[in-house]
């Protein structure tokens, strides 16, 4: 018995050390994980801002000119910035109604068997790799747009937006569904008890009450769309100009980065890629901040 006590005592001092060690490992992990993003911002930002060390590349030019011709010393990236927002906006326009409708359907209308089918289906959408979406865009939507708009090559914001819309559909849908499903049942009951139909209840009570959550989903989808590179690169045509039509080639920030990746580190073109990355980063980060604001308003 005495011997047993001793081993217990020994073990206990050791496990206390283990406990403390693990604690520090966890703290270490947390610190490490949170340092990465600052590392990236610092690095990308620092390298990106070097673009302006070149007298050919002015701040105003970069942000407000659409003339991109590095070989002639023209570094106007406004076209790519506009393109990014344009494609993202179109994608949202296509995706949000379907996603929110799907969310309402899954949360409030679909019988449980239908829900059981749809949930894994929505998950599968997320699982499809973006290059596969790109391939589908290339094989289906590019020819389709070229047929729809004769004379246009079909590469452009049209197929890019369609593909992105499908890619972000599941994100917007599942976040919105969550928001609808977690609304207190009492709201619904109150509306029904006043003789409202289901559609009236959905439109006038449930959707307004779930708006902050749905907004969060939309913003998350927006972040995904604006950051997608490979799928878009395969269908957008990659011309460094503003688009003249849905099936006319243009470029966005991400595809421009892919395209100019072949430039040498330290040159102005290469630095400008980091600057474009910085813009993407800042947009993503502000989206995060917006989500937080929305969430805070929801709590209040």
């Amino acid at each position, binding site marked *: 018995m005495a011997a047993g006590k001793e081993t217990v005592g020994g073990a206990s001092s050791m496990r206390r050390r283990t406990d403390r060690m693990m604690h520090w490992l966890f703290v270490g992990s947390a610190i490490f994980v949170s340092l990465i993003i600052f590392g990236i911002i610092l690095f990308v930002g620092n390298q990106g801002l070097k673009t302006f060390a070149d007298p050919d590349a002015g701040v105003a030019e970069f942000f407000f000119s659409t003339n991109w011709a590095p070989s*002639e010393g023209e570094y106007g990236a406004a076209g790519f910035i506009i393109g990014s927002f344009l494609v993202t906006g179109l994608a949202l326009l296509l995706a949000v109604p379907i996603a929110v409708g799907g969310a309402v359907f899954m949360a409030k209308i679909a019988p449980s068997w239908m829900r059981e089918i749809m949930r894994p289906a929505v998950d599968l959408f997320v699982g499809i790799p973006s290059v596969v979406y790109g391939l589908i865009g290339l094989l289906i939507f590019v020819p389709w747009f070229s047929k729809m708009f004769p004379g246009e090559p079909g590469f452009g914001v049209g197929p890019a937006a369609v593909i992105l819309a499908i890619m972000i559909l599941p994100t917007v849908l599942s976040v919105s569904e969550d928001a609808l499903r977690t609304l207190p049942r009492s709201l619904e009951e109150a509306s029904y008890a006043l003789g409202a139909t289901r559609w009236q209840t959905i439109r006038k009570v449930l959707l307004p009450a779930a708006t902050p959550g749905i907004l969060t989903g939309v913003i998350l989808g927006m972040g995904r769309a604006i950051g997608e590179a490979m799928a878009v690169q395969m269908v957008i045509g990659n011309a460094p100009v503003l688009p003249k039509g849905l099936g006319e080639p243009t470029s966005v920030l991400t595809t421009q980065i892919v*395209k100019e990746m072949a430039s040498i580190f330290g040159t102005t073109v290469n630095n400008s890629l980091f600057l474009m990355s910085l813009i993407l980063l800042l947009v993503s980060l502000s989206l995060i901040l917006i989500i937080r604001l929305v969430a805070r308003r929801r709590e209040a």
Partner: protein
Amino acid sequence: GQKEESKNNNGSTDTPKQEELSGKITASGSSALLPLVKHAAAQFQDKHSGVTIDVAAGGSGTGLKQVAEGAVDIGNSDVEAGKEYEGKGLVDHQVAIAPFVLVTNKDVTVEDITSEQAGKILTGEISNWKEVGGKDQKITIIGRAESSGSRKYIKSALLPKDKDFAKDAVVQDSTGALKTSVEQTSGSIGYMDAPYADDKIKLLKLDGVEYSPENIFSGKWKLYSVEHMYTKGEPNKVSKAFLDYIMSEEFQTKEVEGLKFIPINKLKK
């Protein structure tokens, strides 16, 4: 089994007694030169089982950048390394000559254009096939990215001085993708080296001359460019052996023409 194999590889590099070559070479860059390098790599690897050669495209610019930065051993390019590579220690190996052609989608009815018309089409000055004798059909230019050697070459060969390609052209990141796009897009025109041309697309005559090897040798067909393979500094043993093989009599005479390239010594530029 794999482990043993790699051990053997290591052993062979360590012990000079063994003659067998082994090691890994990575090459990237010009998609125009890609067919030749890939073919050579396949043959070379058959001869030397200890050697691995990875070849990727991405454009001449990518090849030059990556070899200069040490990301790959060999950088392939359609054009000579420019000023920005001065002082980076790149060593040039000229390996073949690549003929270039203008191609269109099969629905284009024009057969023949002049060099001047070609220049105007590619700069966007002419935007409809009817302006060069075809039907009323919009011209879609499918081109390559800034990093492409083909682009640089065609620009120097066909475009008026100080003019660049039309900016609203569709841009593809390699010759293969360009070919597929021309094949898919009605009214399109593009440029590439002859090895890629097949019967799914249409070759244009230039100034009345049809592309053929004979017309090149006779000097009638003017579009061709020297292909380079760059190493950073003098090549290491394996890379050197590989480059030597490409330059060898055997490869240059037996294989190069079959690939629709032209042996480097056959044309004196």
